[in-house]
C-alpha cells in the first residue's frame, strides 16, 4: 500500500465536501432530531440557479451567489414549515417525509427553465487558479473547495459557539419546553436551523458543481449519503467539529483505498466496515445517548387501537377480505398480458413490504436496506434457479436471505433506532456496490442476468397470467403466516421488545434472540420475495436492486400504515397499483412520487389503513344500528 501526497490532497478535497454534508446532517439532527434525507437537495436548486444566471444571463458572480444562498435559506425554512406539524410524531415518519421532500425538490431543480443552455460554459467559479501535485492536476474548482469549505465550516462553528442565537439553538434542541420558558422562540429557532442547513447545502452543491456534469442530480444519493453519515456518526450526530474532521478523514481513506485497489466495490466494502466500526465505537463511548432518547422517538410501530374489535367489526373486516380476494382472483380475466405483469408486481412488493413490517413495524428494528435481502433471494435464483424445483428454491433463497439478515442484524444487539437504520442503509449500498457484482458471491452476469421461469405443479409460469396467480398465492401465504406470527408468542415478544426492551427483558423475554428471530423471519420472507421478483423480471441487473428501492419499500409501508399487514399490502397497491391502473402520466407520477408521499405523511400519518379502519368502523356502526334498532 502506498500513500502518495497527491492522493491525500485529493482525499482532503473530496473529504471537505463530505465534511460539509456531515455538518448539515448533524446540524439538523442536533436541532430537530431528524435524519434529513433532503439535505443534499435543499441547495441543489441554488446551484442550478447560479449556473443558469451567471452562465446564461451574465449575472455578476458574487451578488448572484448571495441571491442563490438566500434562495437556499428560504427553501430550508420552507421545508421546516412544511414538516413542522410532524415534529411531534415519531421521528421515523419525519425522516420518510424528508425523503418525499428530497424527491420533490429534485424534480423542481429539473424544471426546464432552470436548466442551463446546451453546450454551456463550465460551472461558474469565483476565481481561476491552477496547479498540480505530482500527476494530479488541481482545477480551479479544487481550489475553491480548499478555500471555501473550511470557511463555511468555521462560520457554522463560530455561529454555534459564540453567538446568542447559536446558544439558543443548542438550548432549544436540548429541551424545547425549557427553552420556551426562557423566552427562546423554539419554532423560529428550528426554522433558522433549517435555513442555515439550506445555505450549507447550497454551499456544498456550488462547491461540487464544477465536478458534476448534471449539477447535483441525485446530490445525496445513498452512496454519498452513507459517507456523510459515517462522518456524522463519528461525531455522535451532535458534534460538529468531529463530524467535519471525520468527513475529511473519510475522503482521504476513500482515495487511498481507491488508489491502491482501484475497485469501487472495495471502497464500498471499506465504507461499510467503517460505518459499523464507527457505530460500535460510538456506542461504547456515547452509549447512553442511543439508549435513552433514540429508543422512544425512532419507533416505527402503529398506534394501538383504543379497544379490541367488536364482533360486528370483525365480520365487516372479513367481508372486506373476501371481497378483495374475489376481486383479485377475477381481475386477470379483464387484463392484458402486460397489465397482468404490473398487477403481479403489486403482490410481489406486497410480500416485501409485509416482511419489512415484521422487522420494523413489530420488532421495531428500522430497516432502510430491505432490498439487500431481496437481492440475496435474486442471487440464489440466478445461481440455482435452473437446478432446483421452485418450492425448494424458495426455501433455499429464504434461508440464505435469513442468514444474511441475521448477520446484518448482529449490530442491532448493540445499537438501535436511527443508528441501526443507518447500518441497514449501508448494507443496501454494500449489496449493490459489492455483493451483487461479486464474482464468487454475486450474480453470474451482473450487467444483464437472465432467469427462465420454472413451472409449478405442472403449471408453466411463463405466461404473465399464470405468474399473476403464483404471486397472488405467494402473497396470501405470506400474509397468513405473518398474521399468525403476530398472534403467536413470538409476535407478542417482538412487540414487547419494540415497546420497552428493558421491561421485556425483565419479564423473561430474551431480547437478543427475539431481535434476531425478527431479522431471520423478515429476511426469509424478503428472500422469498426476491425469488418472485427475479422470476417476474426474466432479465435484471445490479441496478434492479438500487438502494433507492429499499427506501421505496419503506415509503410503501408508511403510506399503507406502519406496522399493519393490511397497510403493507395497501401501500404496495397504491405505489405500484396506481400506475398499473392509470398508466404512468404526469398526475400519477405526482401522486406516487415525492409529492404524494409528502402529502400522505402530512395529512394521513396513520396511512391508508387508518382510512380503511375508519371506514370499517363506520360500516360496523351502521350494521349494528340496523340490527339493534328493532330490538329497542
Amino acid at each position, binding site marked *: 500500500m502506498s500513500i502518495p501526497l497527491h492522493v491525500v490532497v485529493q482525499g482532503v478535497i473530496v473529504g471537505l465536501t463530505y465534511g460539509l454534508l456531515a455538518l448539515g446532517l448533524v446540524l439538523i439532527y442536533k436541532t430537530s432530531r431528524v435524519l434529513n434525507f433532503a439535505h443534499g437537495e435543499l441547495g441543489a436548486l441554488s446551484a442550478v440557479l447560479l449556473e443558469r444566471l451567471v452562465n446564461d444571463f451574465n449575472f455578476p458572480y458574487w451578488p448572484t451567489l448571495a441571491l442563490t444562498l438566500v434562495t437556499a435559506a428560504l427553501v430550508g425554512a420552507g421545508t421546516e414549515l412544511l414538516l413542522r406539524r410532524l415534529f411531534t410524531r415519531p421521528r421515523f415518519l419525519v425522516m420518510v417525509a424528508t425523503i418525499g421532500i428530497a424527491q420533490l425538490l429534485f424534480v423542481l431543480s429539473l424544471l426546464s427553465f432552470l436548466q442551463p443552455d446546451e453546450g454551456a460554459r463550465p460551472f461558474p467559479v469565483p476565481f481561476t487558479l491552477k496547479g498540480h501535485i505530482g500527476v494530479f492536476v488541481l482545477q480551479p474548482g479544487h481550489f475553491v473547495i480548499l478555500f471555501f469549505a473550511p470557511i463555511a465550516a468555521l462560520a457554522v462553528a463560530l455561529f454555534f459557539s459564540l453567538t446568542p442565537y447559536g446558544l439558543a439553538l443548542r438550548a432549544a434542541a436540548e429541551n424545547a419546553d425549557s427553552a420556551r*420558558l426562557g*423566552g427562546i422562540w423554539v419554532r423560529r429557532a428550528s426554522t433558522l436551523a433549517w435555513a442555515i442547513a439550506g445555505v450549507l447545502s447550497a454551499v456544498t452543491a456550488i462547491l461540487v458543481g464544477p465536478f458534476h456534469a448534471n449539477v447535483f442530480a441525485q446530490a445525496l444519493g445513498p452512496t454519498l449519503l452513507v459517507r456523510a453519515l459515517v462522518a456524522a456518526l463519528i461525531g455522535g450526530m451532535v458534534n460538529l467539529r468531529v463530524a467535519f474532521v471525520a468527513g475529511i478523514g473519510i475522503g482521504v481513506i476513500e482515495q487511498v483505498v481507491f488508489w491502491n485497489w482501484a475497485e469501487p466495490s472495495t471502497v464500498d466494502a471499506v465504507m461499510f466496515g467503517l460505518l459499523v466500526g464507527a457505530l460500535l465505537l460510538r456506542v461504547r463511548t456515547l452509549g447512553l445517548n442511543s439508549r435513552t432518547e433514540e429508543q422512544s422517538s425512532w419507533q416505527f410501530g402503529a398506534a394501538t387501537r383504543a379497544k379490541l374489535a367488536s364482533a360486528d367489526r370483525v365480520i365487516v373486516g372479513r367481508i372486506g377480505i373476501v371481497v378483495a380476494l374475489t376481486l383479485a382472483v377475477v381481475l386477470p380475466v379483464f387484463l392484458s398480458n402486460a397489465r397482468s405483469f404490473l398487477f403481479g408486481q403489486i403482490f410481489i412488493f406486497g410480500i416485501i413490504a409485509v416482511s419489512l413490517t415484521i422487522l420494523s413495524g413489530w420488532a421495531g428494528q428500522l430497516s432502510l436496506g430491505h432490498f439487500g435481502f431481496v437481492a440475496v433471494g435474486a442471487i440464489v435464483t440466478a445461481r440455482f434457479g435452473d437446478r432446483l424445483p421452485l418450492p425448494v428454491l424458495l426455501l433455499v433463497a429464504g434461508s440464505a436471505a435469513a442468514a444474511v439478515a441475521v448477520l446484518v442484524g448482529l449490530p442491532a444487539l448493540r445499537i438501535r433506532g436511527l443508528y441501526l437504520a443507518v447500518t441497514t442503509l449501508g448494507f443496501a449500498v454494500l449489496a449493490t456496490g459489492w455483493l451483487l457484482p461479486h464474482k464468487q458471491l454475486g450474480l453470474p452476469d451482473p450487467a444483464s442476468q437472465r432467469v427462465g421461469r420454472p413451472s409449478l405443479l405442472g403449471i408453466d409460469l411463463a405466461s404473465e397470467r399464470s405468474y399473476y396467480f403464483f404471486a397472488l398465492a405467494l402473497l396470501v401465504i405470506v400474509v397468513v403466516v405473518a398474521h399468525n406470527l403476530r398472534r403467536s408468542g413470538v409476535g407478542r415478544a417482538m412487540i414487547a421488545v419494540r415497546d420497552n426492551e428493558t421491561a421485556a427483558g425483565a419479564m423473561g423475554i430474551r431480547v437478543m434472540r427475539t431481535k434476531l428471530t425478527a431479522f431471520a423471519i423478515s429476511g426469509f420472507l424478503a428472500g422469498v420475495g426476491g425469488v418472485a421478483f427475479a422470476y417476474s423480471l426474466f432479465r435484471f441487473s445490479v441496478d434492479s436492486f438500487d438502494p433507492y428501492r429499499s427506501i421505496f419499500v419503506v415509503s410503501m409501508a408508511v403510506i399503507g400504515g406502519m406496522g399493519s399487514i393490511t397497510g403493507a399490502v395497501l401501500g404496495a397497491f397504491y405505489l405500484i397499483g396506481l400506475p398499473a391502473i392509470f398508466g404512468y402520466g404526469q398526475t400519477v407520477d405526482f401522486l406516487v412520487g415525492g409529492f404524494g408521499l409528502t402529502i400522505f405523511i402530512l395529512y394521513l400519518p396513520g396511512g391508508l389503513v387508518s382510512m380503511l379502519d375508519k371506514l370499517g368502523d363506520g360500516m360496523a356502526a351502521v350494521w349494528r344500528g340496523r340490527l339493534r334498532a328493532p330490538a329497542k
Partner: protein
Amino acid sequence: MAEQTLLDVVVPDELLRTAMARAGTEEALVGVELMPGVGRGAPPPLLPLLRTWGVAPLIALGLAGFLVQMVDSGIGILGPDIQRTFGLSDAGLGAVAFVSSASFLGLGIPLALWADRGQRRQAAAVALLIWALAVPLLALAPSVWAFTALLVVGGLGRAAPNSVHLSYLADAYPIEARARVMAFHRAHEPMARTLGAGIVGAIAAIAGGAEGWRWAMVVGLLGFPVAYALTRVPEPAKGEREHAHVLDGAGLADESATDDSPPRVLLGTAVQRLLRIRTLYFQFVAIAVLGFAAVGIPLFGSLYLDEEWGLDVGARAAISVLVGGAAFLGLPVAGLVGDRLFRRSPELPLLLAAGSLAAFGVIYATALQLPSLWMVIAGFVLAEACLAPLATAMTQTVAACAPPALRSLAFALFGIYSLVFGGFAGGVILGAISDARGPRFALTLMGPVTVIGGALLALGSRHVKGDITRTVEEILEAHDESQRQRSGGKRHALQVHHLDVAYGSQQVLFDVSLNVDEGEVFALLGTNGAGKSTLLRAVAGLQHPARGTIRIFGSNTTYLEAEQLVAIGVTMLPGGKVTFGSLTVDENLRAGSFTLRREPRLATAIDEVYTTFPTLAGRRDQPAGTLSGGEQQMLALGRALVHRPRLLLVDELTLGLAPMIVEQLLGIVRAINARGTTIVLVEQSVNLALTLADRAVFLERGEVRFDGSTAELLRRHDLLRPVFLTQSNGAKHSPPRRVPER
C-alpha cells in the same frame, strides 16, 4: 400533542364522541336567548336599521369591492390584448395570473392580521390606497415584469373585500340584519363581473388599438376618493354587537368591558385556535370542495362548451356573463332567508349552505347531460343562483362562530383553503381526469363532490350552538372581570375560568376554575394524572386550552405563547429533567434568559443566582448533565429566577431529592415568595405543600374537588386518604375511590 386529522374529526373515535356528547348537552350550552342574533318573530326590516346605523360604510365598502373586482374582471377580458402588448404566450399569461392570485392570497393573511389587531377601516383604506396607486401605474408598465410586480402590489386591495370588509360589516350592523348586509355587500361581485367588466372593456375599445387596455387602467384612480371615504367611516369595536346582545339578554348593564390593552396573539396560535373551532373546521374543509368547483368550472367549463357544443370565444364569454348575472337572483333571497333562519336557530343557515352546495353540484352535473344548449345554460343559471345563499350563509356562520377579534383572519383563511387546497385538486386532478375521459365526465364529478361538501357542512352545523356558547361565555367572563376590577375586587395574580384542555381527543381538564391572589403561595394537589401539570402548562402558555379563559394580573393571556409570557413576568419550572444537559451551567443560565440577552441587568441577575446557590458558582463551566439531581434542580430554579418573575409556576420541585436538599430548596422558595413573587406549585407530597402554601386546590381526574385553605384541606380525609396513605393514620386499606358525579 397529536394534531387531529380530518378523518378523526369526521369519524370521531370513542373518546371524542363522548366529549362531543358532553359538549352538546343542554346544560353545556347557554340559553338560546343569550345567543346573539337569535330571537322570536321575523327579523326587523332592513331599511330602518340602515337608517339608524348609517348606510355610508356599506356603500363605501361595496364600492371598494366593486372597483377592485372590476379591474380584476377587466384584466381577464383584456388578457389577449395584454398578451399581445408584451408578447406573452398562453402559458405566460397563465403564469402572470397565477402569481397575482398567489400574491392576493398571501397578502390576505398579513392584512387580516393587521385588521384584527388594529382598525379595520384603516386596513381597508390603506389596502385600497395601495391598489389605487398600483393600478393606474399598470398603464405605464414597460414590461411584463413591471406589470406583474404592480399586480402583486395591487393584490393587497383585492384581499380586503373578502376578509377585512366582512369583519367590519359584522360589527357595524345589527346581527339581525347580518345576512342581508353581507348579501348586499356581496352584490359587488356580480355587478363588477358584468357592469364593471363592461365599463373597462368599453374604455379600452374607445381608446382603441392594441394598447387601448392601458387607458382602461385609469379607473384605478377612482380608488382614491373611496379610500378617503373609508377613513371617515366609524370603527365599531370588535364583537360590539354580540357584547350588547349578551349583556342585554343576561340583564347586565353594558359598561364597555373591553380589555384595555389586549396582548397580541401570534398568527400561528390564532390559526390554531380557529381550526379548533369545529364549525369553522368543517367549513374550511367544505370550502376546499367549493374551491374545487371555483377553479375547475372556469377551466374545464369552457373546454366543455367548446368540445361538446362547438362554441367560440365570444359565445362562451356571453354565456359566462349570463350565468354570472344569475347571482343577482340568489342574493336578495339569500339575505332574507339567512336572517330568518338564523333568528330561529343559529345552525340553520349552515344547513341552508349545505343544501345549496349540494344543489349547486347536482344541478350543474345534471345540466351537463342535457340534450340542448339552452337547457344546459338554464341549468347553469339555476346552479349559479344556488351559490348566493351558500356564500352569505357561510359568512354569517363564520361571523357567529369565530371570536370577533379573529374574524378577519377567519375570512382570509377561507380564501387560502378554497384556492390552495381546492384549487390544486380542481386544477391537477380534474385536469388528469379530463384528459382521460373528457371534460364532461370530469365536470360531472362535481356532483358527488359537492354532495360530500354539503354533508360536511351539515355535520359542522351540529357544532354551531356550542361554538357560539364559547363566544358568549367569553363575553360574560370579560364583563364579570371588568365589573370586579371596577368594584375594587382583590387583584389576582392568576385567574382560571372554566378551563377545558385536551390533547387531541383526550380531554384532560374539565371546567377548572381557580383564583390565586397576589403574593401568596398556592398549591395544586391531586392524584397521578389528575391534570396538575397540564394546568400549569396551560397557564405558562405551553399548551392552549379548548375552552375557558386564563388571566394573569388581570389581562387575558389564554392564547399567548410561553415565549411571550416570560416577558410579562411569568415563568415556570417544569417537572422532570429540565436543564440543558450538554450546555455548561453558565450557558444554561444565559440560554434560560434569552429575552434578557441585551439587557445590562442580566449579568447582575446571573451573579445573584450564583450567590443564592454557591454550589453552582463552582461549577460554572461544567456541563449541566454532570450535576447531581439536586444541583440540577437548583440550576433550573436559578434559571427561572434570572427573570425575576412576578408569577412563578413550579412543577414537582423536590421529586426524588434528598431531605437535606429539599429543605434547602424550600428555604429558597420561601425567600422568593417573601420578595413578592406569587408562587403556584404542584406537589405530590401533601405535607410539603402544606408547609409552604396558604391555599390549595385539589384536582381529581381533571376536575376541581376542593378549593380552599390548606388547613381546611387537612380535615378532608375523604379526599386525601385514598390518595395519600400517609394521611390515613395507619389504615391499611383505603375505601373504594369515589366516582366523581358528572
